[in-house]
């Protein structure tokens, strides 16, 4: 099981910034994260792909916001709950994603890494590199590049 996983995405040790989305815990490499913001005013973009939640004003810079629930095929965020914005820097450009809430920065060990659980379905499977087995819970490692190239 580990061999094919490695060829897909090498298991890495290091720090992951974690966040919650629809009850699950996800993580992205901490070095990608530029900043985390409280809910922001979004400007919708008509005719854009559904995963594009809108544009936000990040200190004068216009940044596209991707709704991660939509990307991962999860149900829409319940009414009345504000998303948290994680601003990510990819290839020198800032993109942001909307998640439910932010959690800790976690040290992970390559030894705990496994391929995505078989129960993962559809497009989510494409975007998840694999899972780190933490104490009592699973941390899903998100492939930021793929997730934000909606």
């Amino acid at each position, binding site marked *: 099981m580990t061999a094919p996983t490695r060829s897909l995405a090498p298991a890495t040790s290091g720090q992951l910034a974690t966040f919650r989305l629809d009850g699950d815990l996800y993580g992205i490499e901490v070095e990608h994260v530029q900043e985390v913001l409280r809910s922001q005013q979004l*400007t919708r973009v008509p005719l854009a792909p559904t995963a594009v939640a809108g544009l936000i004003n990040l200190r004068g810079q216009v940044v*596209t916001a991707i709704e991660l629930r939509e990307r991962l095929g999860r149900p829409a965020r319940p009414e009345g709950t504000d998303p948290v914005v994680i601003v990510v820097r990819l290839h020198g*450009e800032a993109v942001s994603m909307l998640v439910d809430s932010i959690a800790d920065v976690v040290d992970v060990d390559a030894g705990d890494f496994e391929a995505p659980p078989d129960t993962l379905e559809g497009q989510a499977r494409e975007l998840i590199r694999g899972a780190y087995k933490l104490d009592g819970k699973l941390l899903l490692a998100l492939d930021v590049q793929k997730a934000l190239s909606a």
Partner: protein
Amino acid sequence: MDGLDDIVEEFLVESHENLDQLDTDLVALEQEPDSRERLSSIFRTIHTIKGTSGFLAFNRLEEVTHVGENMLSRLRDGELALTPQRTSVLLQMVDTVRSLLTSIEATGGEGSVDVSAVVADISVAMEDGPAPAAEAPAAAETAVEAPAAQQAPAEKAPAKKAPAKRAPAKRAPRAAAVPAPAVEELPETPQEDLRADLPEEPVAPAPVAEEHPVPEPAVADHPEGDGVPASDAAGGQARRAVADSTIRVDVDLLDELMLLVGELVLTRNQIVQNVARQTDTDLIRASQRLNLIASELQEGVMKTRMQPIDHIWSKLPRVVRDLGLQLKKSIRLEMEGRDTELDKTLLEAVKDPLTHLVRNSVDHGIEAPEARKKAGKPAEGVLTLRARHESGQVVVEVADDGAGIDPAKLGAKAVQRGLLTQEALNRMSPADVLQLIFLPGFSTAAAVTNVSGRGVGMDVVKTNIESIGGTIEVESDPGVGTVCRLRIPLTLAIVPALTVECASDRYAIPQISLQELVSLDAEKAANAVEEVGGAQVYRLRGELLPLVRLTDVLGLTSERHDGHVVIAVLRSEGRRFGLVVDRVINTEEIVVKAVGGQLKAIGLYSGATVLGDGTVALILDVQALARRALRTETTDRQEARAGSLQTVSAETDRQRMLLAAIGGGRRVAIPLDTVTRLEQVRTESVEKVGNREVVQYRGAILPMVRLDRHLGAYGETEREVLEVIVYSDHGRSVAIVVEEILDIVDGEAAVRSDIDDMGLLGSAVLGDKVTELLDVRAAILAADPAFYSAPASSSTPAGVPDSLLEV
């Protein structure tokens, strides 16, 4: 080694600048072959390049410039006369030098550029000369000859030119090189001279300057200073007078400054908006001051990036000359407004499109001399470049006095290429037809030349101009000439824009496309906005303006339910349309921010911006919007029309009909596609010619037919204002007077009968009432018996509206 790299770089920059000047000088020299001034200037430029290239061990470059220099020195000394052939050889040399420089720039070496051919050509051109002076001198001779040649200007003009000389800081050492020491230096070869100087003067230009003891060589080193001294008014280059106090600044740095200023402007907007709600007078005063200073700073920084358009125009005389020679056409190039300034980035972006337009005009626009004589024009064609500032934009025109474009031919070609249907073409105005040249894959050149006419021209020009937020349109008078007009924003970074609201979101529309705003209250809107073939139109001062609802384009639902209609009249590609929005907010200076790839792919937004209150607004791409909205509409209608043609024999069926009352309770239907305009005419302006009524309309005489009289109805006899339907075909127009314009209906469901009368085609039930179908042809003949007998493509009378909208 860094030092050396700097030297090479400096050398390249200067040489390129000098070469540009050289092109201009050489072409100008042909006009006045006796100008010593120009010859000296050219000579010095080549000499400088030669000297430096020898020092930097670019041997081939040295070889080419060396023979060139020889020829120039003999030209200057009057041993040789300047012939067109020699000018061509010299220009060829300039080209070779340029490609060598390019190669050096790219690879650091001279690459594989072959110079032997040019060298041979120059030698031949020199031997042809009448002066039996020494054969092309060997390399050893040069050192003697070249400096000797320099003596002439040194002796001739030092006193006169000394005041014009400029001495930037880095050239301080040259101050010592007044004419007297110059003479002492002459016997030395330039190379030795340079090497001797190198230790104290590691920067290339300085040694180069040293090698030129004559006062003017400074020119060779000046970006702005170019070839001829300021006293040489004949050159007309006033801009070099400023060269004194200029410094070179990295464009990247300016870009960064511009970005920062953009941010500052945004922040300023936010502060000013917030402060407007405050009562603290100190704060208000401070914010007003900030407002002012930010505006001035923005203007100042924008100015630093401004360059006169002459920078790109200066290359065009050469282009025109070469092309003219090649095509055996005689062309005079005139330039107006060459000091019009625009942003450097934009200038670069406009360069290629402009060159293409000029080549196009020379190739296709201006006729061969014989053809011109036949047409009663002077043999010499005139190509005019005009640039000017106009309402925050730069307008650049390329105008020729050539054959012009014949809309009929152009339209036929477009149909033949399958770019549009004959049907659609028939309904286009001549002005619209002209814009067809911007369609991809279009070229009207009868013969494909290697100059242009490969079918990839104008659409690329258009794409390029649009990519910098500009627009292009073409106007043409057959037989008189063609004008291509570019409208370019002053700068890319900060653009004035109109902010509008649509479905409670705000959007920005660049002012460059905006013509006017129309606001209609519910009552007026109900009357004034009409349906034509499923598309809405608005009668704007009699012209039919197609309407596009922004909500429809964006797939949103309007939140305006009170029936008010707000129309932004936009211009795109020479045609107008009305964009219906919910509300107009205000005008604002916006800073264009790029949007991510996935948003660009939507093709409706040219970017985004942050508004004064901090919200993000999308910037609408008007061109794309027009293309998307208007084209789908036309194709829809074309399909509808095509379908109707197959199923129906009578021409009135399935057509949109204009319903008009003609008095006595009678209603007449007129096929809408024969209607070009709706007008109102005051009764007192109706005049008589014989027993016919006419009205002056747009500078021409428009024959009138009163439908009530024509059809024997008895309407109100005299009213103050007459409702007029203008019908135009092949450049002739008539006016059909009705009592009242009632409605536009779909003739599809009509129950028809052949009960008719004189002047009618029959009758039908339209809108629940019996309506007479007008025999348009008969009505028109009643007004203008010659209407259909006039030659189909007779010259267009001035009175024909030049911007008819497709109905």
